[in-house]
């Protein structure tokens, strides 16, 4: 038999305890980074910079949470960056056409839902690998967005919409509040509801989940729709922040989202992940970028540092998992 016997007492440490420990380690890393940057440059602990940092991290964080749902099912969503760019165009276009703000927002989010449903359709009905179907929409959506805008940008004149991203609430940037607006229901969904359990089960062994009465197809629809809807939401936030709709925006954000998720302890093999992990991962990445800017580190170095960090953190996470076997 290829499995260890637990009668021999080699049982791993309970999983939840480990996951909390890992979360605390990441939080510790984030705090250490903040303290070090505070010592290195006086520009770091200024209200302006902290607001800036929170805004920078917010959008990646939301994308990373959506991405995590998909990765837990052992899938991947490469399209999220393209969805962000595409939906920024859609909302700008709708507003320019005189559609009321509320309707434009709802319609844009619905587009996100449809894109996610299309991904799941491709995976469930057409049998395409997640990598392929989302890669296809990545390039197609950018193309459609460019067709709509004729390759240029659509400016947004709706002040209520553009002011939102600059506003603060209780001294905290509204963009960061949006992270909380997404994260709290996401936490309830993933960790407290049965659908969260189903995501893990499908990612671990979809046949076992199916035979246990889990509607596997519906679970996959759910994961991809949530990811795309999070991306559409970020598209709205981005459009609000930069005041334009542009199909080429958010280039490479899918990789940022995946990196945040993986740094946050999500396993690309599925069935391992949390909501707080990717959030911390996103803000660690944002802090590194922010700190590098403040310290005038060449932006090329930022990319290298990010890459090294991914390797180091995931490597230690793997060691910990193996050690607990």
């Amino acid at each position, binding site marked *: *038999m*290829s*499995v*260890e*016997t*637990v*009668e*021999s*007492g*080699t*049982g*791993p440490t*309970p*999983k*939840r*305890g480990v996951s909390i420990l890992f979360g605390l380690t990441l939080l510790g890393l984030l705090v250490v980074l903040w303290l070090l940057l505070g010592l290195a440059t006086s520009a770091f602990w200024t209200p302006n910079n902290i607001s800036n940092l929170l805004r920078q991290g917010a959008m990646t964080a939301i994308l990373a949470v959506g991405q995590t749902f998909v990765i837990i099912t052992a899938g991947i969503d490469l399209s999220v960056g393209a969805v962000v760019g595409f939906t920024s165009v859609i909302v700008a276009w709708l507003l320019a056409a005189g559609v009321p703000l509320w309707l434009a927002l709802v319609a844009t989010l619905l587009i996100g839902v449809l894109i996610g449903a299309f991904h799941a359709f491709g995976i469930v009905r057409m049998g395409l690998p997640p990598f392929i179907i989302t890669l296809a929409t990545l390039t197609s959506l950018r193309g459609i967005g460019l067709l709509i805008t004729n390759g240029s940008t659509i400016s947004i004149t709706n002040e209520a919409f553009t002011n939102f991203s600059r506003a603060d609430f209780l001294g905290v940037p509204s963009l960061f509040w949006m992270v909380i607006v997404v994260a709290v229901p996401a936490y*309830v969904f993933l960790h*407290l*509801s*049965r659908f969260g*359990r*189903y995501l*893990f*089960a499908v990612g*671990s*062994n979809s*046949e*076992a*989940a*199916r*035979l*246990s*009465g*889990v*509607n596997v197809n519906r679970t996959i629809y759910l994961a991809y729709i949530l990811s795309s809807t999070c991306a559409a939401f970020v598209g709205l936030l981005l459009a609000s922040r930069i005041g334009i709709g542009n199909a080429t925006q958010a280039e490479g954000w899918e990789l940022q989202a995946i990196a945040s998720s993986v740094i946050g302890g999500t396993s690309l093999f599925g*069935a*391992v992940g949390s909501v707080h992990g990717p959030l911390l991962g996103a803000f660690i990445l944002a802090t590194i970028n922010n700190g590098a800017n403040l310290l005038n580190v060449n932006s090329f170095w930022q990319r290298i540092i990010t890459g090294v960090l991914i390797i180091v953190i995931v490597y230690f996470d793997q060691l910990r998992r193996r050690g607990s*076997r």
Partner: protein
Amino acid sequence: MTGLQEVSQRHEDELEAAVAKGKPILELRGLQKNYGAVQALKPATITFLSGEIHAIVGENGAGKSTLIKLLTGVIPRTAGEVFWQGEPVQLANPTEAITRGINAVHQEVVLCPHLSVAANMFLGDEMNGNGLMRKRAMTEAAQGVLDDLGFNLPADATLGSLTIGQQQLVATARAAMRGTRFLIFDEPTAYLTRQESAQLFRLIRRLQGDGVTIVYISHRLEEVFELADRVSVLRDGTHVGTRDISETNEAELIALMINRTIEQIYHKEQFALGETVIEARGLSGPGFSDISLSVRAGEIVGLYGLIGAGRSEFALGLYGRHPLSAGEVYWQGRKVAIDNERKAMELGIALAPESRRDQGLCLNLPIGLNINLPVFRRLTRGLTINRGEEAANADRQIRDLQIKTPSRRVLASAMSGGNQQKIVIGKWVSHGAKLFIFDEPTVGVDVGTKAEIYRLFARLLEKGAGIILISSYLPEVYELADRLHVFRQGRLVASHDYRAASHEDVLAQAINA
């Protein structure tokens, strides 16, 4: 034509001179393995004689796996000594074990399913010429070995296209051609059909004839008596004794293993039969056709046949996993259409599927989640799961089924085969089903756990449920089923009442002899 002898000759020179038959080839002196404070293997002193077939029996968790891992260099020992051909050896890593001629064939085949049979047989040991692989030569050599061994297998087929049993034969042939002096079989027949088992036994005897020492680990005592010269028994990590096979019997071995008699294993209670729970009329689907049978409350209906005879397919069809092409299903007298698994569950059907690893468990998730997976709907209050009930339900199943784990949070992959099977069963016991389908519930499960599972059957029947028991192990269905149906090539070919036909007749019907 190249035979096994010629191919394995490539390695003969690398190995040390063989020990004379009947002299010690491998000696364990006080070999011991601790994981932390827990003793997985208490100091064991066992001598393996050159050219013998030495069986090792014991319940799950008795230390068999630990012993194999020590001998094949997978894990380091805590204390004790190992003497190979009289010399003390470290066996620090798998390579050292293999170079000395110690090999193992595992229960679950660890080969590459996408490569050809020949490529797998030569994997890591390819024949090269001018820096290129000699593919045709290898295929021919592999075919020669397979033919020589009497395996009717094509060497150029993709490994993954073979049955698990055939893959096991390939794995064995692979080990045999590496000039092995000492070969360990870990439950090799768990997934084999009778013919495949017979082929394997022939191969084992032949290897023995060539002077190879065999260690044979199995839960099936009749195999031990058929094959082995000597047998060692492990219990709770302790080596409790070694016997010559001619001087012992099944009863003594079982007593050594578990302190329980053989009558207590096949625990059967008769219950008054109630209403018909389910009836299939002329059911056809992928892999089975025109099956009619019914199950009443309090009844165990056994489905016997070779692997691939359509029993599991029938069960999956009944459960809504695969679409039916013809026939009708009546549930408690009412005609029903079971289109999906959810519907089957809602009616009250529970299925513990054939393969724990592929169908039964989410291995890298906690035991608790696995147990609760079918009942999360019931544990949900409003939007969220009631954490208290979730924990209570998991803990209750762990306790009732005596799943040996420190916590419900331990991953299912960390459990032994028997405990994993209990998790699969535990998933369904709390579901409150009226019909339980158990597909090969005791494969790779030790005698003690088997007895517990059979006792559980009686408890379910007592509560008024019906059971469909699928097994390739004739004594099991024979001793337990109130009605026994024999499957062959997707059809139901014979039916018998409890113990109404002889073993031989049932077997003949299954293999059409």
